[in-house]
Structure formats: C-alpha cells, structure tokens
C-alpha cells in the first residue's frame, strides 16, 4: 500500500502544529493557575519557539519553496517511521510541558533547560524525516 507524499506532509505538519500549540497552552495554563509569574510566560514561550524553530522552518520552507505540489507515492513503512519519529520528538517535549503545568512542585529553570537542551539534542530523530519530506523534492519519488 502506498501513501501520497502530500498526505505524509500533512500528517507531519499537524503533529508539529499540535505539539507547539499544546506546549503554548500548557504555559498559559501554568500562568493562569499561579504556578509562574506573569512575566515569565515570555521566557518560556521563547524557549518553546526556539525548540520548534528548526522543524517548523523546514516544514514551512517545504511548502513555500515548491512552485507546484506534485503528488508522489511513498511506501507505507517510510510514512509510519516518519510519523513515529515526529510523534516521539513532540511527545518528549509535550510530556515535559504537561508535567510542568500539572505538578505541584517544579522549577521554571528545569522547563527551560529541557526545551533548550533536549529539543536540539533530539533533532537527530526528525532531521532526516523532515529533509526527506520537505527539503528534497526528488527523494519524494519512490521506486514503484
């Protein structure tokens, strides 16, 4: 069974958008529940944006650099591996944000360190996937 490259792109894009939205929501939830001071929201948002900047810029670049969207077929295995790696990277960040927003004792420095250090360190999981689907037009064509 084959999956089209555009469908894979949409899946991956949705995973990242849900991830960043969830993390932002957790920050606002932490602020609303009095876990952090109001002015610290900005510091936390900056670390989330910094973590998501590389993957989202590759994704956005992929959409805007192609003049015409060509529908290609990719194998199902490649598709699921790509989705799994993207999910894993996002879950590592989302779990930290969820834990921060729901626990009774934590520290903002731990949250910021997690996003500043774990997100780039884990980029090996998604760098290849994103390059394959969004940065290299030719490789999206799979041998039948």
């Amino acid at each position, binding site marked *: 069974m084959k999956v089209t490259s555009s469908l894979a792109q949409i899946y991956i894009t949705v995973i990242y958008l849900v991830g960043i939205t969830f993390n932002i929501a957790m920050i606002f939830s*932490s602020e609303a529940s*009095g*876990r952090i001071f109001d002015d*610290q929201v900005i510091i936390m948002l900056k670390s989330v944006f910094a973590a998501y900047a590389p993957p989202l810029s590759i994704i956005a670049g992929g959409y805007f650099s192609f003049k015409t969207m060509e529908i290609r077929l990719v194998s199902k295995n490649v598709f699921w591996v790509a989705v799994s790696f993207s999910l894993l990277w996002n879950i590592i960040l989302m779990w930290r944000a969820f834990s921060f927003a729901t626990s009774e*004792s*934590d520290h*903002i*420095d731990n*949250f910021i360190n997690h996003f500043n250090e774990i997100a780039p360190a884990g980029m090996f999981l998604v760098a290849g996937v994103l390059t394959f689907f969004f940065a290299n037009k030719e490789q999206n064509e799979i041998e039948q």
Partner: protein
Amino acid sequence: MVNQIRKVAFVKLEKAVRLFLISVFCLSAIPAYSEKNDFEVKIEKNIVVTEREGVIRAIHFHYSFPSKESVFIKNVGLLPATGQVGYLCRCDEIEFSENESAPPFHTVSLLDSIEMMGRFNIMMPSLQEFPSSYREGRWNKLSSFTLHKLNVLNQRFPSGLLSLSIDNQPSIVTTYSSLEGLPKRIYGEIALLISDESLKADKKVTFRVKFIVRERRSHTGWRSEIGNETRKVAENYVSDIMNVLVGRSE
C-alpha cells in the same frame, strides 16, 4: 670601668624588658576562662556556619552573674543577671558589661568552636535590603525587653536571629520566616530588622521594626517584587508581631 658598668646594666635592663614582654605576651595568650569568681558562663552550642556575607556563629549559652542585677551582652542588649540565650552572631567572643557604655567585665572566647562540614545554609537577608521606612514600638514594662524580644523572635523565626550592633545600638536581623494565609501556590517569606533604643530617663525602650518580604510561585525562585496579597499578609504579620513585642498580646 664606668663603661663596663653601663654595659652590664644595659644588658640586664634589656633582659628584664625581654622577660617583661614575654610574660605580658604569655598572659595575653591565655584564653578567657568562662568561669571566674562567682561568674558562670556555660557555652552549650558554638557552631560556625558559612553564609553569603561571611562566617556566622550559632551560639547558645547559660550565664549567671549572681552579684549583678542585670548584664549587658554586646550586640544583644540588657538581660537579667541569670538566664540563657541563643542567637547568631558575627563575633569571636561574648562580652558582658554593666551597661551598653561600660567596659566589659567579663569576656568569653568563642574561637574554640565546631566548624560545620558540608553545606549548612542560613539565608540571612543583607542589611542593605531593608528599606529606610520603619514602624516604631515602645516597651513600657519593667522586665527585660531584650529577653522578651528574644523569646518572641526565637519562636517565630526558628532558623535563627543574628545579633549585631547598628549605630552602637543592639539590633537583630531575623532569618526568613514563612508567611501563612497566602493564596494557593503563592509563597511568601518575611525577615525583620529590629533595633533598640534605650531611653536613659525612664529606662523604657523604643524599638524600630523594618521588614523585607520576598515571594515566589510554586514553580519559580524567590523575588523581591511582591504582589498585593503578599504585601497585605506581610503588613498584618508585622502589626501582629508589633503587638506581641510591646506586650499588648501574647
């Protein structure tokens, strides 16, 4: 001949001076005894701890001077002639005198102390952190205000009190103590600076209370900018402790 006599006399004089100086040096090197005459000072705790502005001693001792009516302990204040006190100080000795202006009649060295290994943190607020504004109270009772003040503050600030002298007046800087009654996930701590001023005429004591407050949320560090809730609770706390210090309430 005369020269020889002079020489011998000079050598003997030199020897005598040397002996005198050596004996003076030896006498001064003898540590102050904690027991002398009918005095008794029993040091029960003398621990050196490191703090951000240097070294602090945590001391606790019993003292008894039966022949005196009261004793003035440097940096602490006027106390009954017999009792026990515990406080933190940046000092190497305890000086007992008749009053704040009299020379000490008894001194106890604290140099033979236990030095804590590892980290034993005492978070003392810096004197510069306290504002210039203060609240003033007056102790009108005949009993010792210092003793009353130490009892009240030791109960409320279990991490300790630093006794020191500010403008030659005994003063106390407390460690931080938690503020109760704040909304969920807001934590506040308060520290006080209390300086005494004795009025010579009627022996009554006026004292000034300055306070600093810090606040944190459940997931943040401490900061000195505080919210309205914390300010209100802190002001109530100070009003309450003022009432206790002047003896209006327990």
